[in-house]
C-alpha cells in the first residue's frame, strides 16, 4: 500500500518530465544568482556572520537546490479536492488519505530528486567552488535531515491546504506559503543573518527545518551534539505537524458538506 502510493507519486513526476527540465533551469538560475551575489558581497571580507565565503556560497546553493526536493503542492491538491467534492472519492477508500498523500508526495519528491535535484547538485558541484563535506557521517545525516525536511514541508502544506479550503482562498494562501517558506526556511539566506530578535523567533518556527537545518548539516556547522539536536527538532516538528494535520482534516471533514452531486 505504502509502496503503491510512492509509485503513484513517481508515475506522476514521470508523466510530466518536461516540468522537471524547466525546474532544473529555473533553480539553476536562482542558485547561480545567489552564488554571484554572495561572491560580490564577500569582496574585502574573509568571513560574514562567522561563515567563510566557501561555506556561505555552498549554503545558499544547497539551501535552494533542495527546495526542488521538498517543495510540495499537496496544499493545492487537497484544497481543490475539498472544493470540488472529490474528497468524497478519497473517503470511500479503506485508507488514511493523509498517509496516502504523504507517501505519494514522497514518491514525487524521489522522482524530483533523480530528475531535478541530483542534476542540479552535480553541475553546481562541478562548476562552482563549493565546500564539500569533510566527515563521513555528514552525508547520511544530510539525507536523513532532507527526508525530515520533506515531512515538515508536507505537514505545513497540508495545513495550508485545509486553511485554503476553510477560507475559500487557495491562490492567496499558496502565495503566502511560498513567501513564508522562502523567507523563514532559510532557503534564500542563512537564518543567523537575520537581526535579533527576529532570528530567535524564527528559530521557534518549524520552517527552519526545511532548508536551514539540512544546508547547515551539509556545510558542517554543527558539533556532533548540535547535529543530533537539530535532527531531533526536525523530527519533533514533523510529528507535531502530522498530528495537527490529522486533527484539522477530521474537523474539516466533519464540518464540511461534501459539495456537488
Amino acid at each position, binding site marked *: 500500500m505504502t509502496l503503491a502510493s510512492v509509485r503513484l507519486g513517481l508515475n506522476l513526476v514521470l508523466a510530466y518530465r518536461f516540468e522537471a527540465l524547466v525546474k532544473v533551469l529555473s533553480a539553476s538560475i536562482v542558485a547561480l544568482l545567489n552564488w554571484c551575489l554572495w561572491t560580490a558581497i564577500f569582496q574585502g571580507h574573509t568571513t560574514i556572520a562567522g561563515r567563510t565565503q566557501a561555506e556561505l556560497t555552498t549554503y545558499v546553493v544547497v539551501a535552494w537546490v533542495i527546495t526542488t526536493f521538498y517543495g510540495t503542492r499537496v496544499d493545492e491538491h487537497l484544497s481543490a479536492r475539498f472544493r470540488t467534492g472529490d474528497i468524497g472519492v478519497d473517503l*470511500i477508500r*479503506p485508507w488514511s488519505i493523509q498517509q496516502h498523500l504523504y507517501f505519494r508526495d514522497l514518491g514525487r519528491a524521489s522522482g524530483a530528486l533523480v530528475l531535478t535535484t541530483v542534476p542540479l547538485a552535480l553541475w553546481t558541484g562541478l562548476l562552482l567552488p563549493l565546500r564539500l563535506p569533510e566527515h563521513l557521517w555528514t552525508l547520511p545525516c544530510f539525507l536523513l535531515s532532507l527526508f525530515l525536511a520533506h515531512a515538515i514541508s508536507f505537514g505545513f502544506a497540508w495545513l495550508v491546504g485545509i486553511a485554503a479550503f476553510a477560507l475559500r482562498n487557495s491562490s492567496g494562501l499558496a502565495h503566502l506559503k511560498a513567501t513564508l517558506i522562502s523567507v523563514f526556511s532559510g532557503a534564500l539566506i542563512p537564518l543567523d543573518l537575520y537581526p535579533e530578535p527576529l532570528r530567535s523567533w524564527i528559530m521557534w518556527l518549524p520552517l527552519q527545518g526545511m532548508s536551514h537545518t539540512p544546508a547547515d548539516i551539509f556545510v558542517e556547522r554543527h558539533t556532533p551534539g548540535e547535529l543530533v539536536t537539530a535532527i531531533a527538532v526536525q523530527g519533533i516538528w514533523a510529528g507535531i505537524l502530522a498530528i495537527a494535520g490529522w486533527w484539522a482534516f477530521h474537523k474539516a471533514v466533519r464540518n464540511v458538506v461534501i459539495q456537488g452531486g
Partner: protein
Amino acid sequence: MGVDSPSKDQKDTPFIWAQGLTRTYKTFSRQPGVWGAVRDLFRGGGDTITALDGFNISIQEGELVGLIGPNGSGKSTTVKLLCGILAPTAGELQVAGLSPSRNRREHVRNIGVVFGQRTQLWWDLAVREAFSLLGTIYGVPDSTVAERIRQFDEVLGIGDFLGTPVRELSLGQRMRCDICAALLHAPPLLFLDEPTIGLDLVAKQRLRAFIKHINETKNTTVILTTHDLDDVETLCSRILLIDQGQLLFDGSITDLQAQAPLNRTAVFRFSQPLPASTRDKLQPSEALTCDWSDLDHTPTLTIQFNPMTRSPGELVGQIAAHAQELGVGLADLSIHEAPIEELVGHLYRNSPGWS
C-alpha cells in the same frame, strides 16, 4: 475480502436498515466584500435546513433499488450517509451490520461507488495501472485483479483502452472503467450515482445490461440514483422516491405506474401541410391526449400515451402506416419520457395525505 465477512446481526436485521434517519445542514449566507468574509469567519450559527427527515428503509441483499427524486430532494444526502461520508444527525443506520460513518474504514470495503460526474481513477495513470493500484489499496491479489478485468472486458469491452491514460478516454469509456474500478474488490453493495448521465443510447444500454448482469450473477445489491426514468424502468425491481427529505413512494415500478402513470410523449412532424380530415385519420384512437400544432408551417402531432397499456412500437407503426396510405411524408419523430418532477406532482395529487 469484504465479501466474505458476514456480520453477526445479519440474521435479524436486513442488509441495509435505517430508522428515523435524519440529516440537517447548517448553512450561512456569505456576506459580500473582504470584511464580510472576515466577519463570516467568526460568525457562529446560521440557518438549519433538513435534507433528510426521519427516513425508514429496509433493503435486502441482492435487490436492485432505484433512488429517484427531483434536484435537492435528499438523494445525494442519502447516498452520502449510506457511503459513510456523512454522519447522520439523528436516527440509526446499518449496512451489513456496520454503522457506515462510525466504522467507515471497515464499511467502505463492502461498497463500490460510481459517481457519474466525477472519476475515481487517476487522470495521469493508464487504466490498467489505476486498476492495479486499486487492487493494492483493497488488498486484492494481482491474479484476481487480472481475472476480474478479463471478465469485465467480456461484457463491457474495455480491453482496447487498458493502456490509455484516463484523461484521454471518452466519457463512455471512462464510465465503463469507473464501474469496473468500483467492482474490482467485488463489493456486496454497489452505489451508482447518475451512471448514465451524458452517455449516448448505445452506451447507456450497454451499461444497464452490465449492471443487471452483475446483480444477477454476483447477487450484488445495487442502489442507483438517477434522473433518467428509463434507467429505473429497465433496471430496478424497487423504487424509492424522495422529495423534500421524505420518502414519498416505496414499491415496484408497477405499483408506481398504478399511482402515477409514467406517460410518454411522442412527437411526429410531417413534411407537408395537412387538411383537417387527414389530420383526423392520422390520429390514433387509444392515446391519452392528441394535439396538433403548426410550428414553422409543418404540422406537428403531439401524443401522450401510457407505454404499459400502449406499446410505443405499435403506436409509431400505426401512425407511420396511416401516413403512407394517405401519401403523407413523415419528417421527424421523437419520443420523450415524463420528467421526474411531473411524477412527483402526480404522487402529491394522488395521495390523500398530501392533497
